[in-house]
């Protein structure tokens, strides 16, 4: 990259010999990096085949797609499917649910991971720290079907949560957690925190270990206690990591989830439980309206891209770390 740009700028002022020499060295460098280039080419081809070619399927959103006619012979209907999508009240509700759960999950898991990493870093007993870290990231490897099974049991009428609350006389009747809309988002947020906190904290722990110990020593000499060290050394040093991860996660806000909502939801809470992904499944696969499902999928991708670009620009403006 830098090579070619300096070449383009300097070309006029340089004499021909020098240009030749430069070109030759460019070529020999290319030759030198042959293996790297081949690998890059392979990955580019991989990217094209598996990331860009499938985008051709987006054409379905502008057709009245029928599997029998295929992509080539289905009738084009322009933006009709998008119109249908945005006039559907349930789609608007689904967007609201996705955004709400996405944002709640983002904030809660994010804050919890940082807090957890810092707390864990303060533990001075090495063995204890290792044990806690290992235990806390294990749930990451459980599939959602298991996690929802555990939740279903724990929160059921005679599950552990209700039994505890009954024994402590906090409630007089078992609460049916899955029958009330107000509990659904908190349950989803809790499940995400439980499953991902330990895993997400690993990156922060790694970042913390790379902080120069002399900073802590200097702070100690200046009379900083534990709290002051966290506030003035650890957190500022983590800031670039936090920004990058935040940016990457913002793009995922609309990926608020599919499995957990799909597996925990029921008729009573469907107003707050259904996400865009469930909507796509329902209309695209179950009802066989592939075009409508694709349109909803496109909408989701476009919003995600806008979010990422927007927050990247914000970060740029404030002079923070950024993705691109």
């Amino acid at each position: 990259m830098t090579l070619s740009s300096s070449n383009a700028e300097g070309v006029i002022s340089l004499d021909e010999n020098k240009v030749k020499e430069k070109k030759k060295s460019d070529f020999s460098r290319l030759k030198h990096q042959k293996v790297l280039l081949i690998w890059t080419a392979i990955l580019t081809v991989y990217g094209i085949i598996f990331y860009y070619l499938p985008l051709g399927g987006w054409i379905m959103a502008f057709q009245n797609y029928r599997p029998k006619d295929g992509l080539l012979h289905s009738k084009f209907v322009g933006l009709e499917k998008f119109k249908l999508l945005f006039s559907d009240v349930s789609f608007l509700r689904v967007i609201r649910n996705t955004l709400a759960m996405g944002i709640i999950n983002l904030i809660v898991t994010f804050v919890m991971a940082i807090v957890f990493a810092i707390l864990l870093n303060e533990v001075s007993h090495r063995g204890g720290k290792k044990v806690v870290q290992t235990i806390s990231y294990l749930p990451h490897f459980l599939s959602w079907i298991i996690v929802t099974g555990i939740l279903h049991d724990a929160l059921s009428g005679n599950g552990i949560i209700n039994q505890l609350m009954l024994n402590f006389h906090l409630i007089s009747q078992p609460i049916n957690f899955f029958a009330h809309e107000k509990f659904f988002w908190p349950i989803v947020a809790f499940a995400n925190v439980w499953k991902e906190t330990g895993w997400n904290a690993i990156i922060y722990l790694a970042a913390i270990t790379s902080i120069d110990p002399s900073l802590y020593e200097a702070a100690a000499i200046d009379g900083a206690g534990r709290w002051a060290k966290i506030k003035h050394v650890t957190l500022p040093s983590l800031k670039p990591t936090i920004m990058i991860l935040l940016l990457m996660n913002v793009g995922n806000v609309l990926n608020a989830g599919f499995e957990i909502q799909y597996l925990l939801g029921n008729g009573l809470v469907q107003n707050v439980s259904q996400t865009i992904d469930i909507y796509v499944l329902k209309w695209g696969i179950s009802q066989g309206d592939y075009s409508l499902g694709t349109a909803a999928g496109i909408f989701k991708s476009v919003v995600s891209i806008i979010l990422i670009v927007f927050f990247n620009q914000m970060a740029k403006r404030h002079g923070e770390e950024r993705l691109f």
Partner: protein
Amino acid sequence: MRQKLVSALLLASMVGTALTGCGSKASAAGGAVNKDGIKEFTAFFAVPGNEINDDNEIQQLIAEKTGCKVKETWLTGQTNEEAIGTLIAGGEYPDFVDGGDATVQLYEAGALVPLDDYIDKYPNIKEFFTDQEWDSLRQSDGHIYWIPQFSNIYGEERECTHNDEAFWIQTRVLKWAGYPEIHTLDQYFDLIEKYYESNPTMEDGTANIPYTILCDDWRYFCLENAGEFLDGYPNDGSVIVDTDNNKIVDYNTTPTTKKYFEKLNEEYKKGIVDPESFTQTYDEYIAKLSTGRVLGMVDQWWDFSSNAEDAIKTAGLDKAGCNYVPLPITIDEGMKNQWHNSGGVLNVSSGLGITTSCKDVEGALQFVNDLLGQEVHDLRFWGVKGEDYEVGDDGMYYRTPEERANVADTAYKASHSCPYSYFPQWLGTSRDGKNAMKPEGQEQEFYDGLPDTVKECFDAYGVKTYVEMLGTNPAPGPWYPMYTYSSTMTTATPGGTAWALMDEIKHQYLPKVVMADNFETGWDEYMKAYESCKPEDFISEMQTELERRIEVAKKYE
């Protein structure tokens, strides 16, 4: 140099995998012949089912007789529409398929082979339906694409189980009350309340659950459609057909349905209706029934009999009277009930189809034809003579107690039995004119195989079978049942859209209505939401179909 060689090799292998990855998956199926000279087909059925072992004994016997073997796979963890939608999106199919309610999607995707040109060549298949029935299977393009497998009666009808929907109750409840006559909804709940009051727990101390409602996804019929039966109408499924003037009536808004939900609301407040009803999954529901704690519920027999009823037997809970029997319940005393219909129901909306991925359509159909032959049919449903059943001096088949225990044992079934249960099959009387096609229809064997508590209950009511508990009625008319049409509706028509929306609204509001503090306001909210789905669009499309069916039937009179 060596490094280069390694990277070149890596490169070659990666390109290789990338290319083959794009090509079509070579499928071993499609009537490929294995080393023993047996053709192997694949099948997918969009219903949950039990996989049998690869070395299943009867499957091997059938393979020796017919030269074919089918690897069956079943629905797991998805709805049938999702599974079929995924197949269509992938474009590759098993040889045989039954998509359940989503079968029409397969037809619309052009995934099925038209069968009408072949049918005449296979006598057993040809014999399976009358010309009128075959014609009713023709799709919009005039071809036949699938063969409904069930409810087809050979000779005289032989039916002992009520395979359909009913209000079920445990025999111990009836016994405790001295086997009273229970005819109305009020009597039913009254009995359950009284029993629960004096028996809050089972013998071992676990709490009884007086009444639970399964409400999981498509299985919410256990909550939703009792209204039509309570009014004395048969299972048209999605609507009532008023036989006086051949008009479609929406059962969701009838006074009887409202009374039914009001009753549920009342019982919910009294603590009789299980508070977990609307959030439990199907598995949790079956687990509950299997413990014998649930006194009563509405359900279809096929939905709980093969797992919960068997589990109750295996756990020895049948001695405590935990098996279920159906009751002839209507909203008022003295009404005719039509919970049970005789004559078999031809469900034209789904069946066994052969896909365009099948490379040997004739071989596949020959196999279906062979499965309908008497000898193989006996192997499928009765098993091996001397191992699974005995033949009496009068030529009647019967089972020893040990053989009966085997039949209820899932491990034995997986290694030994192979009913090919989603391939076409006969009910009624065997071609020998004596035995029933299936053990469930063999009256004496059926009665002998019942748990003692159920026998005692039947004796008290003076009946011999589940069907007699309810009484039976002929099908009400040539249109019956209307659900075979509504289950093929898609959102492509206004009626189909209304049907999908109604389904969604009912899923959400019916539980709310039952749990409402004030029933009337809850019902009004529900009705408001319900009206906004434009149910009239759905009703008018059903009316058109009803008239079409009556017209078609006239041609054959």
